[in-house]
C-alpha cells in the first residue's frame, strides 16, 4: 500500500442513461471517458437495473480488439444501484462471482415482479436475503445500517465518500471517517457520477425537468446546484481527497475482489424436448434422419447426406442441439393443435436442411438451391437465428405453451429498448425548456416524411422557425443529444429466451404491460453480444388468412391442404395471374409498386418470386440494380459480370452473382461481394453484415465505405460499379432482404396467389376474416373479388354469421356472404345470439329483438346497415321499426312469444334514393355492393370532359386527359421526388404520379381531397403499366357533399396511404416504435 496517488483510481458509483431520466450518458460513453481519464476501471451501476451493463461490456470488448494498448488492464465491473422503498439509503452492489450475479438478478427480479411495469420495489430485508457474493457500497452515513451490512457481508462493505461541493464537505467527510472507524467499514472515494463529462450538466437538467414534469426555469432546487457529478481523473480525485488518501486506494482494492465478468454467463437451452431415454444429439440425429428418409427416400442421395452431416456436425460442435430441439418442440406443438396453427420459419435457418427436415421451414434446400449457406457459418461465432412466424390470431397460444412448458422461471420475452422518438423528444425537451405547446407541436407534427436519427435544420425552417434563434438552437441541440438515449424498456414482439436453469439468475425479469407476460432486461443486441440464444415467436397475418382459407376449402370439399410441402410452386396459371399484376391481397406483392413491377418482371418460376419479393426494396433501388436486372432478365442487355483486372480470376463473381444475372440483389450477395471483390476477411464481412442489420448503427456502415470501394477499385473493378454496390449495402441498412428470407416469403406469395387464382371466393373470405392486415381496405378486397367473378351477397340477419362466409350458388360455385363483422360497431356476441336464435327465419325487427335478445343498439346497427331485406324491410322502414323496439322484453309478452307493441299506422316514409343507399352503405359497412359514389357524379363529370378510369386505360399514350375519383392511396416514397396517388371510380383505378415540383402548388388538394380531379399526360410503359403524369390536381370533394348525405362521405383509404396513416421507414420503427406497434413483418415503403 503506497501513499502514491499513482496507485490508480476506479470510479465505482457510475450511473448511465439506463437509469432512466436520471443518468445522462450512454454506458459506452461512460466507459470511453473512464478510459480516457486513465482510470484503473469503472463500475457501472444503474438504478435497480442491469439493463445497460452489456452495452458497456460490449464497448470495452470492442476497444480491447481495436486499441489493446490503450485499454490494457482497464477493468469494468457491473452491478446495480439498489434504491429501496423503505427509506434505506441507496446501496451499490457488485457481484464477485457468477453466483453473486445470480443473487443480484434474483434480488432485482423480486423487486420488479412485486411492482407494476417499470418499477422495482425493494426493501433492505430483500438485500439481506440475497447478499451472498455481493460487494456493497453504502451511500448514506447511517451507523445502524452499516453495522447490519457489516454483519451480513463482513469484509465486503464500503461506505461511499463524495466531494459534492455543497459547502460542508470537509466536515461531512470527517463525520464519515469517524463512522468508518467506529464500524470498521472502509471509506471509498467516488464521484457518484450521473454523466461522463461536466459539459453534460445541461442535458442532465433537461432530463431532470422531464422527469419532474416541469421546466428548467421553474425546476429550481429540483436541479442540482452544480455539475459535479461527472467522472474525474485519478489525479483530480487524489487532489480532492488529499486528506483522505486511503479512500482512493479502496477503489482498486474493491476492484481486485471481483472476479466476475459477463463472459461467465453461459447458459443452456432447456432439456425438456428430449424424450426420456434419449441423449440430445442422437435424438436430433434420429429426427432428422427419419424425416430425410421420409422425404427423399432410402438410401439418401449423397448430396443430402453430405448436407445433413455437415450441419449436424456444426450444430453439435457449437452446442446448439438443445436450441434446435426447442424450436422443433414449438413447431411440433403448433402443428399438433386442433386445428393446427400454421407456422413457418425464416431467418438464416431458412437455408438449413435440418430446419427444413424438422418442419421449421418449408423451403426445400434441395429443390431451391440457395446461394450460400449463411446458416451458422464457421467464421461466425454467433448463435443461429431462427424466427418462426405463427398465425397472428393464435400466436398467444404458442406463447402460453412456452410459459406452461418451461415455467415463468425459465422463459421470458426479450426486452426492446425504447429510444427517444423525434416527435416526442421535441415535445418533451421543448416543454422542459419552457416552449409553448404550439411551437413544439408545429415542429413535431409534419404529415409526411419522417425523422431519422436527427432533426435536420430544414425541418426547423419548414416549420417556420428561425434556426438561428438562440432558443430554437438550444431546443435543436438538446433534442439531438437526447435522441440517442434509451427511454424505457418494453417487451420485444416475440423473442423468447429460454433456459435450463433459473432465468432470473441470469438476468432480472420484469412484469410487462400485458397481463401474464414477463420480459427480461436485455434486448436482442445484448443477447447477441453475450452469445445467448433466443427464438423469435412472431405473428404473421397472412398465415392466419391462409389457414382460414384452408379451413374454408376443407369445409366446402375443395381439398385438404396444409402449408407443408404439398403445393408445388410451378403452376403456370398462377404465374400468369401474377404477370398481369393481378395481386390485390396477395402476400408481399400487393403494393402499388409491386403491382407495377410484376408485369415488368413477369415471374415464371419460383425463384422469380424470390427476386420479386426482394427487388422492390430500398437496397436494390438505391443501388440502382433494378433496371439492369430487368433488362438482363428480359434479354435486352447481355449478361456481363464485372471483372477485376489480372491477375485476379476474371470470373470470380460468377458464383456470387450468377443466379441474378450479374446484378447483386440480396444481402448475402453484397456481403460475399465484399469478401471476394474487396478482400474483406470473413470477420470484416460479418461486421459489415452486422452494420447492415443493426439499424441503430447506421453510422458504423460508413466505416466500411472506404475499404469496400477502395478494395474493389484496387482489384480493377469500375469505380461506378463499386459505388453502386456500396450504395446498395447502405440501402440494406434501412431494409435489407437476405435471400433466405425472400425464399420463405416467396412461398407464401405463391400459396396466397394459388388460392386467389383457383378459389377467389375462398381467398376473399379468408382475407376479410383476417382483417386488419395487408394493404387494402375491405372495399377494395370485395371489389377485387367481384372483378374475379365472385358473387358477393349483402349482410343479412337471416343469412350472415359473424365472419364472412361462403354459400353455394345454384350453379355450384361459391358466393361470398358478408358477415356481421363488416358492420361498424357490431359485436361478436350479438352475432352469436342471432345465429343461435335463427331456427326459423326472422320475420320482423321486433321478433328478431325478442328471439335473439338483442339490445336496441344492435338492432339499429343492423337496420342502418340494410341487413333486414330478407324480412321485407329496406333500410328506412327497418330503421323506423328498430327505433321503436324498447330495451328488454316484458316477461308476459316474452313468455307468450308474442309481439308487445301494438299496431301503428304506417309512417309513410319516403323511399330511399339509390345514391343515399350507397353512401349509407359506406358509412355503415365501409363498402357498398349497390354501386360506387362516382357513378352518381359521372354525368356531371362527363359533361366536363372528365374521363373514367376505364377510358384512361384506353387512352392513347401521351394524350392529355382529366380524370377524377375517390382517393385510395397517397404515398411519397424514397427521396420524395414524386407523389403517388391512386384514385378509384366505379370502373377501376387510375395511378397518378405527381412530381414534387408541382406538389407545393397543389399541396392542399393533394393532402385534403377525398374526391380528386387530376389532369395530365397518360404514360403507358411497354409492359402496359399506365400512369397519369399529373400537372394539375383539383380538390372536388365538394361534389361528394352535393350527393346529399347526412354525414360526410369519408371512404376508407388504404392502409398504405401515408397521409392518413403516416408510415415510417424500417429504421424508424425499429429504433423508435413501441414494440406493440411495430409491424412484425416490416412493410417496405414503396419504391419504383
Amino acid at each position, binding site marked *: 500500500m503506497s501513499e502514491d496517488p499513482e496507485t490508480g483510481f476506479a470510479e465505482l458509483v457510475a450511473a448511465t442513461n439506463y437509469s432512466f431520466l436520471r443518468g445522462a450518458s450512454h454506458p459506452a460513453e461512460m466507459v470511453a471517458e473512464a478510459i480516457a481519464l486513465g482510470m484503473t476501471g469503472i463500475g457501472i451501476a444503474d438504478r435497480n437495473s442491469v439493463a445497460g451493463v452489456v452495452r458497456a461490456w460490449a464497448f470495452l470488448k470492442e476497444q480491447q480488439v481495436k486499441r489493446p494498448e490503450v485499454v490494457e488492464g482497464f477493468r469494468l465491473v457491473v452491478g446495480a444501484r439498489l434504491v429501496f422503498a423503505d427509506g434505506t439509503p441507496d446501496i451499490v452492489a457488485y457481484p464477485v462471482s457468477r453466483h453473486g450475479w445470480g443473487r443480484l438478478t434474483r434480488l432485482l427480479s423480486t423487486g420488479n415482479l412485486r411492482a407494476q411495469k417499470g418499477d422495482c420495489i425493494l426493501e433492505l430485508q430483500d438485500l439481506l436475503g440475497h447478499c451472498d457474493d455481493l460487494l456493497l457500497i453504502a451511500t448514506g452515513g447511517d451507523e445502524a445500517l452499516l453495522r447490519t451490512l457489516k454483519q451480513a457481508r463482513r469484509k465486503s462493505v464500503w461506505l461511499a465518500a463524495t466531494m459534492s461541493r455543497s459547502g460542508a464537505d470537509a466536515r461531512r467527510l470527517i463525520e464519515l471517517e469517524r463512522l468508518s472507524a467506529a464500524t470498521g467499514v472502509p471509506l471509498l472515494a467516488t464521484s457518484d457520477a450521473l454523466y461522463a463529462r461536466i459539459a453534460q*450538466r445541461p442535458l442532465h437538467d433537461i432530463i431532470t425537468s422531464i422527469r419532474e414534469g416541469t421546466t428548467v426555469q421553474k425546476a429550481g432546487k429540483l436541479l442540482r446546484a452544480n455539475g459535479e457529478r461527472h467522472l474525474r481523473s485519478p489525479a483530480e480525485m487524489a487532489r480532492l481527497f488529499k486528506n483522505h488518501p486511503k479512500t482512493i486506494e479502496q477503489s482498486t482494492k474493491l476492484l481486485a475482489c471481483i472476479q466476475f465478468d459477463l463472459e461467465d454467463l453461459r447458459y443452456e437451452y432447456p432439456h425438456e424436448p428430449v424424450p426420456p431415454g434419449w441423449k440430445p444429439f442422437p435424438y436430433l440425429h434420429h429426427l432428422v434422419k427419419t424425416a430425410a428418409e421420409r422425404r427423399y427416400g432410402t438410401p439418401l442421395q449423397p448430396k443430402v447426406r453430405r448436407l445433413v452431416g455437415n450441419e449436424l456436425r456444426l450444430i453439435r460442435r457449437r452446442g446448439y442441439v438443445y436450441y434446435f430441439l426447442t424450436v422443433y418442440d414449438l413447431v411440433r406443438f403448433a402443428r399438433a393443435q386442433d386445428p393446427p396453427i400454421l407456422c413457418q420459419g425464416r431467418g438464416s435457418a431458412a437455408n438449413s436442411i435440418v430446419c427444413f427436415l424438422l418442419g421449421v421451414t418449408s423451403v426445400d434446400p434441395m429443390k431451391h438451391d440457395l446461394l450460400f449457406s449463411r446458416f451458422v457459418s464457421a467464421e461466425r461465432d454467433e448463435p443461429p437465428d431462427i424466427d418462426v412466424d405463427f398465425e397472428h390470431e393464435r400466436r398467444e397460444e404458442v406463447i402460453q405453451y412456452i410459459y406452461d412448458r418451461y415455467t415463468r422461471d425459465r422463459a421470458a420475452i426479450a426486452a426492446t429498448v425504447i429510444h427517444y422518438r423525434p416527435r416526442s423528444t421535441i415535445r418533451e425537451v421543448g416543454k422542459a425548456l419552457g416552449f409553448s405547446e404550439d411551437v413544439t407541436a408545429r415542429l413535431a407534427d409534419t404529415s409526411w416524411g419522417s425523422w431519422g436519427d436527427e432533426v435536420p435544420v430544414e425541418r426547423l425552417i419548414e416549420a417556420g422557425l428561425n434556426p438561428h434563434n438562440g432558443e430554437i438552437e438550444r431546443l435543436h441541440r438538446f433534442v439531438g443529444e437526447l435522441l440517442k438515449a434509451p427511454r424505457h424498456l418494453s417487451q420485444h414482439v416475440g423473442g423468447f429466451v429460454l433456459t435450463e436453469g433459473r432465468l432470473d439468475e441470469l438476468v432480472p425479469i420484469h412484469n410487462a404491460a400485458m397481463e401474464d407476460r414477463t420480459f427480461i432486461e436485455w434486448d436482442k443486441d445484448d443477447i447477441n453480444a453475450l452469445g445467448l440464444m433466443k427464438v423469435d415467436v412472431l405473428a404473421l397475418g397472412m398465415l392466419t388468412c391462409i389457414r382460414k382459407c384452408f379451413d374454408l376449402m376443407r369445409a366446402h370439399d375443395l381439398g385438404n391442404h396444409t402449408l407443408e410441402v404439398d403445393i408445388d410452386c410451378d403452376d403456370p396459371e398462377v404465374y400468369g395471374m401474377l404477370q398481369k399484376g393481378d395481386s390485390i391481397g396477395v402476400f408481399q406483392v400487393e403494393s402499388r409498386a409491386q403491382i407495377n413491377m410484376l408485369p415488368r418482371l413477369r415471374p415464371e418460376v419460383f425463384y422469380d418470386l424470390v427476386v420479386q419479393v426482394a427487388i422492390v426494396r430500398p437496397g436494390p433501388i438505391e443501388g440502382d440494380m433494378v433496371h439492369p436486372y430487368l433488362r438482363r432478365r428480359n434479354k435486352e442487355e447481355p449478361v456481363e459480370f464485372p471483372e477485376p483486372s489480372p491477375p485476379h480470376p476474371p470470373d470470380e463473381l460468377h458464383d456470387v452473382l450468377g443466379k441474378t444475372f450479374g446484378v447483386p440483389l440480396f444481402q448475402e450477395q453484397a456481403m460475399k461481394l465484399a469478401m471476394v471483390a474487396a478482400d474483406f476477411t470473413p470477420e470484416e464481412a460479418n461486421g459489415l453484415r452486422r452494420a447492415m442489420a443493426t439499424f441503430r448503427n447506421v453510422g458504423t456502415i460508413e466505416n466500411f465505405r472506404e475499404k469496400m470501394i477502395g478494395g474493389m477499385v484496387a482489384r480493377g473493378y469500375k469505380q461506378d460499379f463499386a459505388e453502386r454496390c456500396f450504395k446498395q449495402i447502405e440501402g440494406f441498412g434501412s431494409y435489407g432482404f437476405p435471400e433466405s428470407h425472400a425464399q420463405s416469403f416467396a412461398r407464401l406469395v405463391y400459396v396466397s396467389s394459388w388460392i386467389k387464382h383457383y378459389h377467389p371466393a375462398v381467398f376473399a373470405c379468408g382475407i376479410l376474416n383476417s382483417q386488419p392486415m395487408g394493404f387494402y381496405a375491405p372495399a377494395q378486397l370485395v371489389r377485387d373479388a367481384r372483378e374475379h367473378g365472385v358473387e358477393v351477397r349483402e349482410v343479412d340477419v337471416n343469412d350472415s354469421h359473424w365472419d364472412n362466409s361462403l354459400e353455394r350458388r345454384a350453379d355450384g360455385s361459391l358466393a361470398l356472404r358478408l358477415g356481421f363483422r363488416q358492420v361498424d360497431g357490431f359485436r361478436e356476441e350479438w352475432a352469436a345470439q342471432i345465429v343461435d336464435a335463427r331456427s326459423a327465419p326472422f320475420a320482423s325487427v321486433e321478433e328478431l329483438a325478442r328471439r335473439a335478445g338483442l339490445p336496441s343498439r344492435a338492432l339499429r346497427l343492423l337496420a342502418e346497415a340494410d341487413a333486414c331485406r330478407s324480412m321485407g324491410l329496406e333500410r328506412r322502414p327497418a330503421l323506423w321499426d328498430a327505433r321503436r323496439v324498447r330495451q328488454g322484453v316484458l316477461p308476459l309478452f316474452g313468455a307468450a312469444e308474442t309481439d308487445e307493441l301494438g299496431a301503428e299506422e304506417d309512417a309513410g316514409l319516403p323511399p330511399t334514393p339509390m345514391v343515399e343507399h350507397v353512401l349509407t352503405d359506406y358509412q355503415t359497412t365501409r363498402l357498398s355492393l349497390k354501386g360506387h359514389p362516382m357513378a352518381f357524379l359521372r354525368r356531371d363529370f362527363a359533361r366536363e370532359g372528365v374521363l373514367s378510369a376505364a377510358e384512361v386505360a384506353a387512352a392513347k399514350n401521351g394524350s392529355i386527359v382529366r380524370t377524377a375519383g375517390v382517393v385510395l392511396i397517397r404515398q411519397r416514397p424514397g427521396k420524395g421526388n414524386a407523389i403517388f396517388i391512386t384514385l378509384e371510380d366505379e370502373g377501376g383505378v387510375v395511378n397518378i404520379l405527381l412530381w414534387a415540383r408541382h406538389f407545393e402548388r397543389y399541396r*392542399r388538394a393533394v393532402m385534403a381531397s377525398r374526391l380528386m380531379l387530376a389532369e395530365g399526360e397518360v404514360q403507358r410503359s411497354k409492359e402496359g403499366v399506365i400512369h397519369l403524369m399529373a400537372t394539375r390536381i383539383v380538390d372536388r370533394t365538394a361534389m361528394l357533399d352535393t350527393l346529399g348525405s347526412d354525414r360526410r362521405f369519408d371512404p376508407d383509404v388504404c392502409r398504405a396511404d401515408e397521409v392518413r396513416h403516416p408510415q415510417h421507414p424500417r429504421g424508424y420503427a425499429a429504433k423508435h416504435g413501441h414494440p406493440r406497434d411495430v409491424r412484425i413483418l416490416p412493410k417496405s415503403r414503396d419504391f419504383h
Partner: protein
Amino acid sequence: MRIASVGAKAEGVGLRVGMPLADARAQIGELSVVPFDPVLDQDWLDRLAQGCARYSPLVALDAPDGLILDIAGTEHLYGGEAELVRDVEMRLARLGMTLRHALGPTADAARALARYQTRPAPDEGQAIRRLPVAALELEAEATTALVRAGLKTIGDLASRPMANIAARFGADAAMALRRLLGDAPSPLAPRIALPPVVADRRFAEPLGSTPHATKVLAELVDEAIEELGERGKGGRHFRATFFRSDGLARSIAIETGHPTRDTGLVMRLFAERMDSLADPLDPGFGFDMIRLAVPRLEALGASQLKLEGGAVRAANEVAAIDELADRLATRLGRGRVRRLRPADTHIPEQAQLALPAADAPPPLPWPAPEAGEPATRPFHLFDPPQPIEVIAEVPDGPPHHFRWRRQAHAVRRYEGPERIAAEWWRRRDNGGLTRDYYRVEDAQGRRFWLFRHGLYDEKPDPRWYIHGVFA
C-alpha cells in the same frame, strides 16, 4: 391540437372545426393560428350582451357565440324590426363582427332559424318547417337516424304523429319539436349583471362639518358591508365620493390586501387616508350627498370562531399583520410596502422576491434550516456583491487573505467551497460562470461570505467578491 374555430376564408379552402392542426398545416403552408381561449370569448360575448342592453332589457346568452334578445315591445323605439336589425348590424360591423340573425315568434324558433336556416321561405312558419332536423339539436345518433329514415326537415317530422316520434326518439325530441313549432313555451334566461355595491345618502340641508360627514360615511360603510355579507363577498376597494352643494365632488379611495367586511378596518383606512391628504377635504358650502361604492368584490366566507375558543389567534395574528400592511400601504403608497417570498433557485440573490404586500399571493413556507447546521446564508446580501482582492490557493482552495474596503483581513477559519453553477438556460451560450462560496472568519472573529466568480477552467483569472456579512 385541433381547430376550434375557422374564419370564412379558412372555411373556403376546406379547413374545418375539429381538424387536427397538423393536418391543416400540411394542407395550407401559411396559416395564422391563435390559441383558443374560451374565457376570453365568453368575456367578449358578455360585453356584447351588455351593449345589446340598449335594444332590450331581456338579453340572454346563447354560448359560445350567440345572443337572444327579446325585442317584443321595444322595436318601435327603432322604427320597427328591420330598422332595429340594421342598427345591430351596423354597430357589430364596427366591432369587426359578422352577424347572422333571425327573428322568430319564440326564442327557440329564432335561434334555430339563425343557426340552421339554409333556404329562404315566404314566411316564418314555412321557414321553420324547412329547417333541417339538426335544428332540433338531438344527439348526433338520433339526428342521423332521422335523416336515414328519410325525415330530413322539421316539416317532415311535424307531419307525422307526435306519438310515433316520441316512441322512437324520446319525449325530449317531441318537446324540442313542439318548442320549435311554437306549440310549447321556450323560456328565456336573461343575463343580469351584478351591480357593484353602492350606498348613498342625500341631505336636505348640506353638511358643513367633516367629522359629521365621516360619521355618515361610517353608516354607509355599515350598510354596504351588510349587503356584502348577504352576498358572501368582501370588498377590496372602497370609494367614497363627497358631492358638494356647489357641484364639485371629491373622491377618496382605499384598498385592502384581502377582501374584508370589517367596518372598523375600512373606517381606519379612510381615516389614515384623510389624515394623509395633502389637500384636506373641504366641505365648502356643505355636502349635499355622500356616496360609497365598492367597485371590487371578492368572495369571502363567514368567519367562524373555533369551538374550543382562542385557537383563531394564529389567524388573528396574520390578520393583524395584513391590517398593518394595509394601513402602511394606504399611508405610504402600495408599492412601498413589500413582503418577502422565497423563490426556488440555487442563486443566492434570487432566492427571495419582494412583492407589494397588497398583491402578494399567500405566503410560502421558508425552507427550515437543518438542525445543528450553521446558517449558510448571511441575513443581508450586498447588491451587487463587492469586489475584493484575495490571496487563495489555485484552483479551488480557500482564501487566505482578502482586502475589502481597503482593509486587510486574514482568514483564520473557513468552510467551503459551496459550488453554485450558473443557470445556463438564461444564457445564449448555455454557459455562465460557476461560483465557489466560502464562509470565512477573520482574526477578529468576523464572518464573511466570499465567492470566487468562475472556475479556473472557465476563466483564466476569476475575480473574488464579498456577498454578505454574517452577524
